[in-house]
C-alpha cells in the first residue's frame, strides 16, 4: 500500500513545485482536453513525472444532476468496502471504470472507477446535501485503506495520476471529453514516493484546486479546518486550500473576492489606508479568519462550476500570469504555455500579489480589484 507507506499514522507532507494552468470559455463553450494537454506539455520543466492531473467542468452533461465520484483504489478490497458505503449512503445511478489507455510511460495504474450518485439523506439529517457529501468523502478517505475520492462534484471530474501531465492526459483520453473549464497541474515533488491520489488537482464537491507552492501556515490551517470538520488526510497543501475554499465560499457564503482576501489578506498598513467601511471589512476578515490566512509561497487556480479563480500569495513568491482573448480566460504559471495554444491574445497581465483573477461564465471582467464602494 503505497499510500499507507506514506501516510501511515503520521502527518507526512511533501513539498513540491509545479506548473499550473487553467482555461475557461466565458461563453460556456465546451472544448476538448487536447489544448490544455498541449499547454501543460509546454511547462514540462515544472514537473518531474511524479504527478499530473486535470479537472474538467461540463464533461458529464448527461449526469449533470448527479454527483460524479472519481475513485482511486489500490485494490478490490478497497473498492468493495467503498461501494458498500456508497450504496449505504447514496443512490448509485451509474458505476463504471474510468476509461484509459496505457501509454509509453504509464504502463500500470490503480483501479480507477467513477460513480454517478445522489445522496440518500434521512429526513432528520439537518446537514445540507453538500455537507452530507463532504462527510461521505471524508469518511471514505479516512476510513477505507486504499480508497481515495479524487473528485466529488457535479458535471465535473478530476483525472490525475503519477506521470507527466501530458501523459496523464493521454492516459485518461482527455481529448475525448469536452468541458468549458479545464485546469491542469504538473508536479515536482521533492520525494520519490509517488501515489496517484496525491497528484493534483485536489477536489471536493465542485471545487478543484491546483497549486504551486508550499504553505508555511499549513500547521495552523489544518488545525483550523479540523476544528471546522475537515479532516486533512492527504497532507498536501492543496487539500488545505480546497477545504478552505469550500468552508469560506460554500459554508460561510463569502464572495470569491473576499475568500481570496481571507487567504491572502491585505497588509495591515494597506487596510489602514482604506476608507473606513472597507477597512472594517478587511480588518474583521483578518481577525476572524486569521487561521485561514495562507502564508508562504503559492499560486493556485481554483475551479468551480461556473468559473475559476487564480491567486498568488501575499507577496507573490510564485509566478502567475493571466491572459484573455475574445472568449477565453487563461491563467498559467508561464505565459509561454498560454501562447503555445493561443498566440494571439487580447490581453496578458500579471496579477499582483494576493489579488485574485476571477473568471465567471457569462461575466465580462475578470480582475476584481475595487468592488467595494
Amino acid at each position, binding site marked *: 500500500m503505497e499510500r499507507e507507506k506514506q501516510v501511515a499514522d503520521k502527518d507526512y507532507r511533501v513539498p513540491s513545485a509545479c506548473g499550473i494552468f487553467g482555461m475557461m470559455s466565458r461563453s460556456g463553450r465546451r472544448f476538448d482536453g487536447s489544448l490544455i494537454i498541449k499547454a501543460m506539455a509546454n511547462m514540462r520543466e515544472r514537473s518531474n513525472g511524479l504527478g499530473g492531473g486535470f479537472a474538467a467542468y461540463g464533461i458529464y452533461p448527461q449526469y449533470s444532476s448527479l454527483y460524479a465520484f472519481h475513485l482511486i483504489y489500490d485494490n478490490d478490497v478497497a473498492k468493495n468496502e467503498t461501494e458498500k458505503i456508497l450504496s449505504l449512503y447514496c443512490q448509485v445511478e451509474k458505476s463504471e471504470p474510468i476509461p484509459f489507455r496505457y501509454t509509453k510511460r504509464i504502463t500500470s495504474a490503480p483501479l480507477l472507477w467513477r460513480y454517478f450518485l445522489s445522496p440518500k439523506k434521512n429526513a432528520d439529517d439537518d446537514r445540507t446535501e453538500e455537507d452530507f457529501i463532504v462527510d461521505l468523502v471524508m469518511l471514505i478517505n479516512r476510513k477505507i485503506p486504499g480508497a481515495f475520492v479524487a473528485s466529488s462534484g457535479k458535471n465535473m471530474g478530476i483525472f490525475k495520476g503519477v506521470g507527466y501531465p501530458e501523459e496523464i492526459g493521454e492516459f485518461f483520453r482527455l481529448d475525448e471529453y469536452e468541458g468549458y473549464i479545464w485546469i491542469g497541474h504538473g508536479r515536482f515533488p521533492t520525494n520519490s514516493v509517488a501515489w496517484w491520489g496525491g497528484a493534483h488537482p485536489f477536489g471536493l464537491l465542485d471545487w478543484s484546486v491546483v497549486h504551486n507552492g508550499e504553505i508555511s501556515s499549513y500547521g495552523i490551517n489544518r488545525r483550523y479546518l479540523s476544528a471546522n470538520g475537515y479532516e486533512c488526510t492527504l497532507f498536501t497543501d492543496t487539500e488545505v486550500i480546497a477545504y478552505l475554499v469550500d468552508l469560506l465560499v460554500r459554508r460561510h457564503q463569502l464572495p470569491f473576492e473576499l475568500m481570496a482576501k481571507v487567504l491572502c489578506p491585505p497588509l495591515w498598513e494597506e487596510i489602514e489606508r482604506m476608507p473606513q467601511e472597507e477597512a472594517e471589512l478587511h480588518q*474583521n476578515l483578518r481577525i*476572524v479568519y486569521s487561521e485561514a490566512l495562507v502564508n508562504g509561497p503559492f499560486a493556485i487556480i481554483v475551479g468551480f462550476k461556473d468559473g475559476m479563480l487564480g491567486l498568488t500569495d501575499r507577496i507573490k513568491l510564485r509566478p502567475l500570469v493571466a491572459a484573455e482573448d475574445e472568449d477565453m480566460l487563461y491563467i498559467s504559471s508561464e505565459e509561454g504555455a498560454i501562447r503555445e495554444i493561443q498566440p494571439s491574445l487580447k490581453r496578458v497581465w500579471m496579477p499582483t500579489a494576493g489579488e485574485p483573477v476571477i473568471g465567471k461564465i457569462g461575466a465580462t471582467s475578470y480582475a476584481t480589484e475595487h468592488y467595494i464602494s
Partner: protein
Amino acid sequence: MPLSTIFPEFKIIRDKEKCIACQVCVRQCAFEAHIYDPEKDEVYSDDSKCVGCHRCEALCPTDALNIIKYPFDIKDNKNWTPGILNDIYRQAESGAIILTGMGCDKDYPIYWDRILLNASQVTNPSIDPLREPMELRTFIGRKPRYVEVERSQERDTVKVKTQLPPQLRLETPIMFSAMSYGSISFNACQALARAAEEIGTYYNTGEGGLHPDLYKFGANTIVQVASGRFGVHPDYLNAGAAIEIKIGQGAKPGIGGHLPGEKVTEEISRTRMIPTGTDALSPAPHHDIYSIEDLRQLIYALKEATEYKKPVGVKIAAVHNVAAIATGIARAGADFITIDGLRGGTGAAPQVIRDNVGIPIELAIAVVDSRLREEGIREEVSLIAAGGFRKSSDVIKAIALGADAVYIGTAALAAMGCHVCQKCYTGKCNWGIATQDPYLSKRLNPNIAARRLVNLINAWSKELKEMLGGMGINAIESLRGNREHLRGVGLEEWELRLLGIKPAGEGW
C-alpha cells in the same frame, strides 16, 4: 548574641588599588553592605548584608567592586547543599516561612530550550523582514466564527455585517504582565505604561489600582480585578482597555497577596483605596468566587459595568488541571485567558510555594490550546501565556504552541535594571523598581526605563520577524498554533505528545 550559622550569600571583593573611597557604593546600598570609615578615609564591606543586586558594582566609577558567590563549601553532598542548609539555618533562627521574590529558580525542565524552530530551504523561500513586510499585529478578544457580509445587488459591492466583540490590538504579541503599584514603584509603573503606549501594546495594573497620573495611558492599560479588589471602582474599570480577573499567579498558586503596611504610602493608599499604613491583604481565593458559575457572574458584572466595550479576561496559574479549568473559563464568558506558569514572578511569595506548585507554562499552553480546539471554542477566547519568558525565541515558541500573546514581567524588570536578586519583598530594591522608598524609587528614571523597555520589545519584535521570515511566514497569525514549525530535542514521548510536537529529525 547567640551564634548565627547563616552564612552570607555573596562576597564583596573590593580592589583597594582601585577604590578611591568616593562612597558611591555606600550611598547606593540600601542594605548597608558598604560602610565608610571617615577616620581612615576608606570604605569597607559587610558580606552578610549583600543581596547580590550588583547595584554598587554597576555604579562604582573605578570598577573596584566585584560581587561573587560566597565560597561556602561543605563536604560534597548532593542532598544537603549549602543553599538548603542556609534555609534551615535561617528558619532555625527565625521560626518563619521563608519569603522570596521573582519566579521559581529551581532546576525544572525549561521546555523552550528543548524546542527548535523550523526554517525554509529551497522549496519555500524564506522572507527577509528587512525587505518584505512582516506583520506582528495581534488581536486579543473573542472572535466570531465567521464574517457575514451583505452584498448589494445593483452595484457589485459588499458590506460587512458582523460586528466584532471588543478586541485589544497589539502591534507585537508581547505585553507587560501584572505588576501592581505597590509591588513596584510609581516610576516603574509609569515606564511600563509609557513603553506600552509607544510600542502599541498593553501593560497590566496588577491589583494595585490605577494611579490618577496613569489614567492617560488607559488605552494601553489592562486593569486587574483581584481578590482584594484594591482600587476597583467604575472609573478604574472604564479607564483601561481591558479587564483581567486575577484568580491565580504562577509564582504562588493558591496563595493570596500581602503588601505590608509600611509600603502603603499615601499615594498607594489613595490608589488602592485603603488606609495609609495598613497591610493590603489579598485573600487566597475571591470570596465571591467559589465555583465557575460565580466566575461567570463576575465576568458579566464587569462587562455590564463597562457596557460590553472591553474584553474581560481571567488569569489563572498553570496547575495540573489547567486545560479543563481554561475551557470552563472560556465557557464562562471570558474573552481571554491568561495562564501564568510555574516560573512566573512575584513581589513576594513563600519560597516553598513558589518553588513547588504549578506546572511549566510550555505544557500548559499546549494542553490548553489543544483542549480549546478539541472543544471547538478556541476562537471564543484568546490565550495569553505568562511566566518566565526570557527571550524572543521563548515568545515565538509559545505562539507556535498556541498562545495568542505573551506577558513578560521579569524580562521587563530586567530591562529596567533588575538583577533578579529576589529581594523584592524587602522593599529595598536598590534599582528603584520594587520599592516605595522615594530615595530608592527615583533611581528609576522613567524616561530611561521606558526607553529601555521599548528597545527590548523592539529588539525582540525584530527577532520575531527574523524567525518568522526564516519560516517563510509574514504574518504572526500563520504561526499561532502552527506546531509544525516546532520540533523537540531530548524530550520524552509523553512530553512530545503533550506539547503536540514532533521530535527533531522528523519531517512533515
